[in-house]
């Protein structure tokens, strides 16, 4: 069932990608494919990792880097053949932390990340729900580890 969901998703993406060829002459250009909702989680995970490194929370830095990597892998898997402008390349440059970073900022960021992933969960297909659930629970674990 998981496999079938992935296939049909790919089918949708293919259809979206090829639609402009058929209709370019007669209709206004169609909307580009919507950005992958997981991309926001990737951005947050990268930012948290940079912030954690800056305040010396190495365990958090490495866990949030792993979150970014796993989520990006799913984003790339879902849309491998659409090199559109909205899809960020995997090898994005490192994020720089805010000036004067603090552990309090990191705690707030992890709380926000836990909530962000949890709120996205109801809208996701099942093959993504486990991944995003683990990211959310992983952020809660990091908060417990920092106590």
């Amino acid at each position, binding site marked *: *069932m998981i496999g079938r969901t992935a296939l049909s998703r790919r089918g949708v993406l293919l259809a979206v990608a090829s639609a402009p060829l058929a209709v370019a002459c007669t209709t206004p250009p169609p909307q580009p494919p919507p950005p992958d909702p997981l991309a926001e989680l990737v951005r947050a995970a990268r930012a948290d990792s940079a912030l954690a490194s800056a305040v010396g929370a190495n365990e958090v830095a490495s866990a949030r880097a*792993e979150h970014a990597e796993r989520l990006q892998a799913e984003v790339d898997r879902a849309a491998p053949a659409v090199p559109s402008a909205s899809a960020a390349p995997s090898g994005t440059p490192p994020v720089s932390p805010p000036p004067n970073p603090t552990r309090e900022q990191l705690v707030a960021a992890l709380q926000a990340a836990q909530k962000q992933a949890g709120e996205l969960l*109801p809208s996701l297909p099942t093959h993504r729900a*486990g991944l995003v*659930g*683990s990211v*959310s629970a*992983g952020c809660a*674990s990091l908060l417990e*580890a920092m106590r």
Partner: protein
Amino acid sequence: MQPTTHDAVQDALAAEHAAVWTYGLVSAFLQQQAADVAEGANAHRARRDATERWLRDAGQQPEPPAPAYLPPEPVDSASSAVAALVVAENDACAAWRGVLERTDDAALRRTALDALTVSAVRATRWRKVAGLTPVSIAMPGAAG
């Protein structure tokens, strides 16, 4: 509701039965953490009961607990007791993540995320007591 959802929830129930049993087993060795042991035991009992109710409401017969469970190593000390709790919580994480991967039902997903999260937090707490590093697991419930 597809049968795989029911199977996943039965697996989660089995993990909750095992966790309840494990918290009972270890309590004698963890007098200093009595409050945390009681909190974990109560949470898993409540989760077990709620999971049994969910299955009955879905027309399923909840699987009963096993007569006994095999801890990863014999529990005869505080450290082996904590190790058994870490395993029980990790098993619960994996089982509830399995539910997330097998349902589109929003309410069940909320339940599964909550169960995954609180077990991951308790696993972290026990890993801290055991002095394990990293203290937390990056992707609770994920295989490997």
